[in-house]
């Protein structure tokens, strides 16, 4: 009862503001004027100053940020969406916070540890474009992949830059001294080569002071990918062990399959991708797939159909018009993935973008807000 009158009042207010400003809120109407004084300010994001940049190794760096007071904090393991203006366009990427909440409470700083994607549009640019004092925008923290405190036995499996949420969790345990000594934690950390292990010294120090923490650095050059033998060898693991997996999607898929073959209970397997819901892992074939997020439909993309044709042949009916890329009615948000624009003959960025469905052909796995 109460909530329905509240809802009505809200709706009336929305209508009123909409009629005066043609925007959803007064802040949106004034946003361009505010940006005049405060460049880069956004109604929907937290304006944040870059405090510094730390080079971790050849292809990783950590961005040290000082979020403004509007930022509501986070739990160890959560991620944020980082939005930066590049050549007049807002570009966004998801990153786990790699530092801990306790560190944030003490210093007001958070860290994002970012791998430079060699052929990427954003990450190689980021490291050159940002410096101390630059302005970026943050979303509030999101994600359910957080530090478990109740479980007795935990196995963390990290692949490459997937180490970041675990670093946050371990730093949290180390700084807050809240670690339950009964809790056993194993970290299996896979990296491309011996040079690619991040935060190695930190983890080793943590191991020294916490006898129930076991660190296994897995150099893929010598030991290869995740295997059942690697997991089986850890004799501190039991049937009650909860597994936490973070890394590139093929690695997550592989690890999940291995754990299932080892009869691990499905509710004991936790994993994390960055950003929007990834494509379902059950897909068997080599083909790429398109996930229509709102329709909860995932379809295989086997011939070079446009996204509009693909949607329509799967009984999803997006609004469309001219079908030749002129009218912009079929514009839709791509949450992730690369598409080829048949009109401009260009490839898209990998992050979130507005695309025209009628002239976009998916190149790899694509997630659409449709």
């Amino acid at each position, binding site marked *: 009862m109460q909530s329905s009158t509240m809802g009505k009042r809200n709706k009336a207010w929305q209508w009123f503001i909409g009629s005066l400003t043609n925007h959803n809120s007064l802040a949106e109407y004034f946003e361009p004027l505010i940006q005049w004084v405060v460049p880069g300010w956004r109604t929907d994001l937290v304006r944040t100053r870059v405090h510094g940049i730390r080079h971790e190794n050849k292809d990783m760096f950590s961005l040290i940020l000082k979020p403004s007071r509007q930022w509501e904090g986070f739990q160890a393991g959560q991620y944020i969406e980082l939005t930066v203006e590049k*050549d007049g366009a807002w570009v966004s990427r998801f990153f786990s916070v790699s530092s801990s909440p306790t560190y944030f409470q003490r210093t007001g700083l958070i860290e994002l540890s970012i791998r430079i994607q060699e052929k990427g549009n954003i990450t190689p640019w980021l490291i050159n474009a940002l410096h101390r004092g630059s302005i970026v925008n943050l979303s509030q923290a999101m994600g359910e992949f957080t530090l478990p405190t109740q479980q007795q036995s935990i196995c963390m499996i990290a692949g490459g830059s997937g180490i970041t949420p675990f670093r946050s969790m371990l730093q949290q345990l180390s700084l807050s001294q809240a670690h339950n000594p009964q809790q056993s934690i194993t970290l299996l950390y896979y990296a491309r080569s011996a040079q690619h292990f991040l935060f190695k010294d930190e983890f080793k120090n943590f191991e020294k002071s916490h006898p129930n923490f076991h660190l296994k650095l897995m150099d893929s050059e010598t030991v290869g990918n995740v295997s059942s033998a690697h997991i089986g060898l850890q004799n501190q693991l039991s049937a009650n062990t909860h597994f936490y997996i973070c890394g590139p999607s093929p690695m997550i898929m592989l690890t999940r399959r291995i754990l299932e073959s080892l009869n691990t209970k499905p509710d004991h397997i936790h994993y994390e991708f960055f950003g929007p819901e990834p494509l379902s892992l059950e897909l068997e074939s080599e083909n790429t797939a398109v996930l229509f997020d709102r329709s909860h439909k995932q379809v295989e993309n086997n011939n070079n159909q446009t996204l509009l044709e693909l949607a329509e042949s799967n009984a999803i009916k997006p609004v469309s018009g001219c079908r030749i890329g002129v009218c912009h009615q079929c514009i839709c948000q791509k949450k992730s993935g690369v598409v080829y624009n048949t009109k401009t003959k260009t490839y898209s960025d990998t992050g979130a973008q507005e695309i025209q469905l009628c002239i976009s052909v998916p190149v790899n796995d694509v997630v659409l807000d449709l």
Partner: protein
Amino acid sequence: MNMQANTATQTRQPDADPSTLDQFANELNKVRERTMKKVGKADAKYIRTLIRIQRLSDISGRILMVLGFIHPAYWVVGVIALATAKILDNMEIGHNVLHGQYDWMNDPNINSRKFEWDNAGDSASWKRYHNHEHHTYTNIIGKDRDFGYGLLRLSSDTRWKPKNLWQFFTYIALCLNFQWGIAYHEVAGERIFMGKRKKTSNLPITREQLKYAFFNKAARQLFKDYVFFPLICFPVFFQVLAGNFLANMIRDIWTNTIIFCGHFTENIHTFKASECENESQGQWYHRQILGSSNLEGGRLFHIMTGHLSCQMEHHLFPDVPARHYPEMAKEVRAICGKYNIPYNSAGFFKQYFSVVKRILHYSFPDKQSTPVQPA
């Protein structure tokens, strides 16, 4: 060559053979590519600056109008400022943003999916018929209802009816209330309130949704300009009401005049649906040029018209940020010269005069019918 022959409907030139038009299309595509490479930071800055100017003139216009009780000059300046805000919002900002020209910015408030403008028409409805119907089927009689808006007879393709005798006055009425014409266009086309329901419809929403969107947007605009702002300035209620009314009307006259100059000038071509089936890109470009005309003027003039003064370039490249059109126009004009394609560009008064002439000319039945047969 008398005027009579000039104003008569012309069909596509028979000598425009497909392979030449393919080359023509290639050259235009290169102009587009070169321009798109330049699109970036400067464009984002430009559109943000314009939105700021629009906001400032919107706010100051409404305040100055109230100060009219001190001296009427404040009121006059206020009306002009508000009219300017509405013109900028509808043309250089709204029209171009709704064409997707700034979608690449990924800005939540400057994109074609979300933008809503300060006029009576629901922007989603406008996008359906304008971006699709008008821009895809430009000047195809029977498909592009923008050609005469179902009210005016502007070529011999349409049969003369007695109501065309007074169509000049219909035109004046449309001009003064243009935002309502825009708002009602799709509702009329779908025959929501009047007329026999069409057998086929491509409307992607239900008729109820269309009706709701029409009334909702109209109510919002009426509430803002004729209820809310006059009421909160109660002692000067009528002063504000009249000022808002006038500002809307100035915007209506201006947008209508510019748009008519873009499509209904003397040498505009019209097309039959059959001519345009399975068009190549070159033929499509060709039709866009033959169906549009440009206005010449300075930078401020271009901005105030939302660059619809470069109507041909806009029809060739509807999603290229419009501030590049004047530069592109030089190249397009040279390419048209090379392929012997007429490039219809002239000053405002010359083009407007020929629009008036066309409206008057087709008010009367054709004297002797000499239809030009397509080749």
